[in-house]
């Protein structure tokens, strides 16, 4: 990278959303009131799998204050991001407990709630299946009889007709059987993870308005307005110009959970029937836990062959991800789980099978890490099992095997900008891996992670310079708490040469802000960062051209600093941007810069969730724990977390991402578990679902490693989804180091630890 003089990028500029949020002025979806607005409530299925015999809504419709009731029969449309399999409301049959069956629109929430009690639904129960491995076996009840004929987003999504498998991803290199035959040791382990809930502070919400001419407007807290618009337009078979998606200025948390159509789907269903009235549906916390999405419960079987000296020869991985009743993003989650399923290590012979499996439970979809936490739990736990068996140091073994620049990844790609080794080295150094003494029942462990990134998908931006020299950034990246608005403004301010305070990012609205694939996959800093950088550079060139006559200098000799266009060599020969515009355009005038970033792809690669990655998400963590032998409680003493940011555009935001991610990972490691009885969620509240509180958050030493990426803006890459992935195996490895027990099923609750300690003592 050429060294650039940077003024704003690389500084911990105060977040642009901080003031609004601290002062309680931030506007969220539930703050939005549209004139004439009604309120909707959803009647949900009480069975995990049942045929709908009849629905009687007549009594609900007669209730004063009710303006309409809709059932699946009224909205014969199907949606889905990767596989078109999900109705807006259940039709013919319900496939999970909590699925929407009917929606009431009423003048207020209480009336709508009351009306739900008046709807009668007659069901005929069907056999259900809940375990992802059982669901793949012959004879398992079929949840989608026609999975083979569903419309797919791309040809690389591969359902297996006549089964519950909605995607089978395969990756083979070398000859795995030959590799096992040549190995000195074979390790076979099965690891499982439960469903984890996103636990956004803000629940899902949407306001939908459909008019007589099928113009559709949706206000929502969705993470990706353009993706939602496309999904809505395709489902309702209307042109995209008829669909407008407006995102609330602030979204209270995402972590992958706010994508696709959730509250939007049920709000659209009722708005399709009750026309010309905006209808708001805010999910309750219980609906959030039971009727949105969570993290895929998983079973990962890992078989690894190694030589006596620790050289990896072969690895076979079978991944089963329970996606629940509808595919949602499951097929692409299982693809990414598969691509990185063997871990970020050089292994010549590989066989990876990743199955995305329907079950009769709450859906699973995108969740920070996107298949990474489940596979890292397996490959990083087994890494320590292997190291221990061979008497090798876990850090040393990883350093020998880990991918570096120039290696060929399992997907076939030659790696560049692979900062993972640096991350591990930093972690090992900061935790004094080889030298720091630990106390009794204390232990240390490390874990690495790698995750693929949604490739290739585009991002567009406009940078609009106003008459007074201020700048509006029109970008559809959503600020969901991750800090993207700040990053975008910093890049524009840097590139254009204006102060941070002059730049403001607009809230996404598909009518005005240009296309962006999604605010997901840790892609915004990289993709939207590039797009706004280009747009700002474009605006700057236009401004320099306009200033050229006024300053009597060639545009090449001009630049902009602190909002003033000036001759490079003579800062005093300057004009404020406002003056440049007014001198050219009189009282009015604006300059519009454009940027569109779309990664260059190797020939023959898929253009939808390809195997080739524009960059990789990478990170390493170390954990120090203390285990109480009497109670089985695990106390996290400290987590050391180094993640490859390429370049930290805003170091503080980067480190905060790490802190938040580690806390999420610690919850997944030690307590979080959405529990079911059959298909019914047993703990759908913050009281019963043990997401860590602030008091439970561990001490964290976050580190942003800056291993620059040649294609990233200023070298930057994404970091958000790296941060929670290695935490559980790092903790499990530390527990093993402390007391010699190996837990393979998350979460590592004290009862499991105590039982394992007892079993160990008995041996």
């Amino acid at each position, binding site marked *: 990278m050429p060294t650039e003089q940077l003024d704003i990028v690389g500084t911990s500029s105060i977040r642009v959303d901080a003031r609004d949020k601290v002062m309680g002025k931030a506007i969220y979806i539930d703050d939005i009131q549209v004139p004439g607005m009604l309120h909707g409530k959803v009647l949900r299925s009480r069975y995990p799998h049942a045929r709908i015999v009849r629905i009687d809504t007549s009594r609900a419709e007669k209730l004063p204050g009710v303006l309409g009731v809709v059932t699946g029969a009224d909205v014969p449309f199907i949606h889905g991001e990767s596989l078109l399999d999900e109705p807006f409301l259940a039709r013919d049959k319900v496939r999970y407990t909590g699925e929407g069956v009917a929606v009431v629109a009423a003048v207020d929430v209480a009336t709508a709630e009351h009306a739900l009690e008046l709807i009668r639904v007659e069901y005929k129960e069907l056999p259900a299946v809940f375990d992802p491995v059982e669901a793949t076996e012959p004879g398992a009840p079929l949840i989608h009889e026609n999975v083979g004929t569903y419309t797919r987003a791309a040809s690389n999504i591969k359902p297996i007709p006549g089964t519950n498998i909605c995607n089978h991803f395969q990756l083979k290199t070398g000859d795995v059987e030959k590799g096992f035959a040549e190995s000195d040791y074979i390790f076979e382990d099965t690891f499982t993870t439960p469903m984890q809930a996103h636990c956004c502070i803000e629940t899902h919400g949407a306001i939908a308005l459909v008019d007589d001419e099928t113009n559709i407007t949706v206000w929502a807290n969705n993470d990706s307005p353009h993706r939602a618009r496309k999904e809505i337009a395709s489902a309702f078979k209307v042109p995209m110009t008829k669909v407008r998606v407006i995102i609330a200025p602030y979204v209270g948390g995402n972590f992958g959970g706010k994508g696709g159509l959730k509250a939007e789907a049920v709000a659209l269903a009722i708005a399709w029937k009750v026309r010309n009235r905006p209808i708001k549906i805010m999910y309750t916390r219980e609906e959030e836990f039971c009727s949105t999405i969570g993290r895929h419960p998983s079973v990962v079987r890992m078989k690894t062959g190694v030589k006596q000296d620790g050289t990896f020869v072969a690895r076979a991985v079978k991944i089963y991800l329970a996606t629940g009743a509808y595919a949602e993003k499951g097929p692409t989650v299982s693809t990414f789980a598969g691509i990185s399923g063997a871990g970020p290590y050089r292994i010549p012979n590989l066989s990876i099978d990743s199955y995305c499996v329907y079950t009769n439970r709450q859906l699973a979809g995108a969740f920070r890490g996107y298949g990474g936490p489940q596979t890292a739990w397996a490959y990083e736990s087994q890494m320590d099992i292997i190291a221990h068996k061979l008497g090798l140091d876990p850090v040393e073994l990883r350093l020998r095997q880990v991918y570096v620049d120039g290696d060929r990844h399992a997907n076939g790609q030659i790696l560049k900008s692979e900062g993972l080794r640096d991350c591990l080295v930093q972690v090992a150094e900061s935790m004094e891996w080889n030298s720091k003494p630990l106390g009794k029942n204390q232990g240390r462990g490390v874990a690495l992670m790698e995750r693929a990134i949604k490739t290739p998908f585009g991002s567009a931006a406009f940078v609009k310079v106003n008459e007074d020299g201020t700048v509006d950034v029109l970008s559809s990246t959503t600020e969901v708490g991750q800090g993207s608005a700040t990053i975008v403004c910093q890049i524009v301010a840097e590139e254009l040469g204006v102060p941070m305070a002059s730049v403001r990012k607009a809230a996404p609205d598909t009518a005005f802000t240009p296309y962006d694939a999604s605010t997901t996959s840790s892609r915004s800093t990289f993709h939207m960062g590039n797009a706004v950088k280009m747009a700002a550079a474009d605006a700057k060139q236009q401004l320099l051209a306009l200033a050229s006559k006024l300053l009597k200098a060639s545009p090449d000799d001009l630049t902009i600093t602190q909002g003033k266009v000036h001759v490079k060599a003579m800062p005093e020969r300057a004009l404020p941007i406002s003056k440049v515009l007014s001198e050219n355009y009189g009282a009015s005038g604006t300059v519009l810069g454009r940027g569109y970033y779309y990664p260059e792809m190797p020939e023959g690669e898929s253009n939808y969730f390809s195997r080739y990655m524009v960059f990789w998400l990478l990170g390493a963590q170390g954990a120090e724990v203390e285990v109480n032998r009497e*109670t089985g409680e695990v106390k996290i003493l400290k987590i050391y977390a180094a993640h490859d940011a390429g370049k930290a555009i805003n170091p503080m935001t980067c480190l905060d991402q790490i802190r938040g991610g580690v806390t999420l990972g610690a919850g997944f490691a030690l307590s979080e578990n959405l529990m079911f009885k059959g298909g019914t969620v047993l703990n759908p509240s913050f009281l019963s679902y043990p997401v860590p*509180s602030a*008091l439970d958050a561990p001490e964290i030493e976050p580190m942003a490693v800056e291993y620059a990426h040649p294609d990233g803006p200023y070298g930057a890459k994404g970091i958000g989804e790296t941060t929670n992935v290695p935490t559980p195996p790092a903790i499990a490895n530390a527990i093993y180091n402390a007391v010699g027990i190996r837990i393979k099923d998350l979460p590592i609750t004290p009862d499991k630890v105590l039982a394992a300690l007892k079993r160990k003592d008995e041996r």
Partner: protein
Amino acid sequence: MTLPKFDYAEPKSLRQASALLRQQRGKAMLIAGGTDLLQALKNRLKTPALLVDLKNIPRLDHISYSEKTGLQIGAMVSLRQLANSAVIKEKYPMLVEAALAVGTAQLQAMGTVGGNLCQDSLCQFRDRSPMARLMLEPCLKLGGHVCHAVSGSNKCWANYSGDLAPALLALHARVTIADSTEKKKIPLSKLYSDDGKRPTRLRAGQILTVIHVPPPAPHSGSAYLKLRLRKTIDYALLGVALYLSMEDGDAVCKDIALALTGVGKAPFLVKEAEQLKGKQVGDAEIAQVAEAAFKQAHPLSNIGGLTPAYRKEMVRVYVRKAFGVALESAGQDA
């Protein structure tokens, strides 16, 4: 869910309050802070026609103490008020520990001592919204015929998880129960019914008004230890409260009481602990009491994310730990 419709009264005297409760013949309920009640109302687990709020009744939010009669806590004293009371901090540190173990800071600010003692018992198969309840057969506590916690049971096994009850039981607390005609003082242990459906024995019109705690003996010590997954929010998956006092100058136990919560339909005293009176408290004695407590605990899989076997196992561990803490605070080497 939104709150259902109900009438609301703020009587100015106990007599009025009791009269209102009786007039409604079981269709009225008391509200004393509401942190337990409001969620049950939103979930339609309770549907009273009238809520009788005790907040305007004089002196119910008072705390008083004398060396002779001990401590009086009005039922409407908030948990925060209790935890901040100088005299309680000095004389009854276990009550402060128990109050601060309840829910969160916000719940401690709104919740009251009387409300906490009279809180309903819990069961994850029941404490759900009306729609989520439909996903399971109606249970005994909902007026149905099945128990999801103990299959085949014709008794409700909802779990009592209050934090203050065990601490007050161990401190030999008594409570005043008033109705429109009389007031009577009963031992706190008599308040509880051991019926999962209705954890207290209060009848319509009866109001718990004051909690009385005898003055602490010299050389006394105590401990309240709570098992939960998180450091806050969670109900007790087990709570162990121990109070003991020692003879002057030697290691002989003069008085002792041990109470448990979170592992049964009611909080309960472990009577076997009393056998330590007049004895030296050594490891063998402690183990004996821990074993008795272990036997009386009946945790079930109706709350929380830890196995019942583990919670039962922890009874032994927590009782032992509680002895360590209490003996140390009584000036003994643990």
